[in-house]
């Protein structure tokens, strides 16, 4: 079951690569939150109940509902246009993301450790690099934040791989998540919307040598 959910997660990355509208990105993020809820539930069933409730609460409420709603609110408030405006055609993006996934898949053959299941490693690392790829190839500042949230999801999956032995690390990951979403989104996109009229990365090219 975990494998099915993880594979669904990977497919959502491919879909994200070809998505045009920002609303689609938000929906995918929300969907990923639900998948993470399922994975966390199966993976962490053995840890103590209070901690499990906390983790599940975080995935379903924060990742799947609160953050997508919040991003949506930020976009409406700053009147961000709905197109993601990639620098690179979506078809090329699809190929590159596929290459990322295949490369991590091949790399994972180097792991001789039987304790860690390889699929977590593959999905987490390819999510991480896909997130980075989305950050560098999209024009809007808000897509940077969305890419960062994708990276967060990847890190969360990786932390689930050791979640049973070290639940503390899962909680730390959640701390990171809250730091990122509240801080990056809450304070900054509001401010950026107030100060800069057009929310493009091109606006952020004054500081240079």
């Amino acid at each position: 079951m975990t494998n099915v959910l993880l594979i669904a997660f990977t497919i959502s990355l491919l879909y994200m690569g070809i998505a045009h509208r920002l609303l689609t990105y938000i929906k995918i993020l929300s969907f990923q939150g639900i998948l993470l809820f399922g994975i966390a539930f199966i993976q962490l069933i053995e840890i103590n109940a209070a901690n499990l409730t906390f983790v599940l609460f975080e995935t379903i409420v924060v990742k799947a509902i609160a953050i997508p709603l919040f991003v949506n609110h930020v976009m409406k408030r700053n009147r961000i246009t709905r197109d993601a405006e990639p620098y690179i055609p979506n078809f090329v993006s699809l190929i590159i993301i596929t290459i990322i996934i295949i490369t991590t898949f091949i790399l994972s053959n180097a792991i001789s450790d039987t304790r860690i299941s390889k699929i977590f490693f593959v999905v987490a690392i390819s999510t991480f690099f896909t997130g980075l790829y989305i950050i560098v190839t999209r024009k809007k500042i808000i897509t940077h934040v969305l890419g960062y949230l994708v990276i967060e999801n990847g890190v969360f999956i990786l932390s689930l791989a050791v979640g049973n032995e070290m639940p503390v690390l899962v909680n730390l990951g959640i701390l990171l998540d809250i730091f990122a979403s509240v801080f990056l989104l809450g304070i900054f996109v509001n401010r950026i919307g107030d100060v800069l009229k057009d929310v493009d990365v091109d606006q952020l090219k004054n500081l240079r040598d």
Partner: protein
Amino acid sequence: MTGIYLAGAFGLSALLFFNRNKLTNYLLVSGFLLLQIAFAIYEYLHINVTELNYFCADSLAVLLVMTLTIISIPAMYHSYVYLSSKQDNPRHTAIYFASMVALLTSINAAYLSNHIAVTWIFVELTTLTASALIYHRRNNRSLEGTWKYVFVCAISITLVFIGILFLSFSLPEGGAADLPFSNLLKNAPDLNQFWLRLAFIFIFTGFTAKLGLVPMYTAGIDAKDKAPSPAGALFSSVLMNVGFVAIFRFYTVVSHTSIHRWANHVILIAALLSIFVATVYMTKVKNIKRMFAYSSIEHSGIVMLGLVAGGLGYYAAVLHIILHSFVKSSLFFQQGQIYRIYKSKSIYDVGSYIKYNPTGSIIMLLAFFFATAMPPSGLFISEFMIFSSLFKANYLSLLIVVILLLTVIIWAFGKNIFKLLFSSPVDFNEDKVEKINPAESISQFILLGLVVYLGLNPPQEFVTLIQEAVKNLPH
């Protein structure tokens, strides 16, 4: 005491945030400084005592806490000078001091923590508090600087977290109790090599954002440029030391494993590229503050070379990072005065500084000699030790490249500093020049004096502390 300090300092920070009264603000800030001094003395007297499970003041932490205490006093003083020249509104002043106190506190906690996850949490806190300082001016460019800083630091903190996860994979038997540095050090030979390599790459790359090395150095440059100069002084001294502490502690663990040589190569590449990038930008940069920031990149590259060289290099690396903090913070403090005279940071708009502010220009001249590691600067001693240990470790060709690059840096740095001091400025109206009180430069003289003293004639306790700090590294 750590508990009292953390609670007290964060409490003071919260009070500063809500307080709008000037006198109360003075009282709270001096309260914090007293607490900081008391804390530094207490930790010096109680070395290697673990408190609250996660905080242990080992020799390295004590050295850096002392450094921070010494720099924090002039930083607060120059903040008052800076704010009084700007007629800021009380709310911004309150946020400024609250975040500065919180920044210093979280830096202290990051120095002391003996658990990599705790270090990680406090490094995250330094990002939050530093961003409030960078945004102090509240204009487009400071917003850009803040956004870049926060975003790059968020990415790098994620990298560190991934590194910590890989580190936990590498442990032979699971359990969070195994993540403190002392336990890692004990179990070092048993760690799984594959995961440890990945962990090292990710943790090292993540912390380079704080230390200011290639690849994540970029955000730090903008931050030091856009932050008010007293805050910039903190960023390029004590905040860089946070990155150093984190990398140093993890490197100590790695140095006892079979990937030590490989890790050295990774650090070597990052260090060499940092010095190279610093050289390229130093010759090109036209903004005085950014020039200082690139000089910090160069110095952190040299420090990392010390780690790579080993032997005497370990000692020299710790000495170098401490002395560099003093030199660089005094340069940034002095930069505040330059800005008040010329209302510009560009090298094109400045000149004849020696005419308008003789005391300040003496500081500038001295600090230039000190930052480029010319005698009698203490940095000369540490750099000399690093180079000789590189020579002993058979890195001769590397050494030649580094020395050539440093020569270019000295030329570029000197060209700009002498332009500032001696050539006459273009289109500059002399009538409205602000008179700078020479007393404002006293703190810089003290800091620079300390560099000479600690470099040329270090007290025995200081030497012992550094030797203790590097004793866990293989010789």
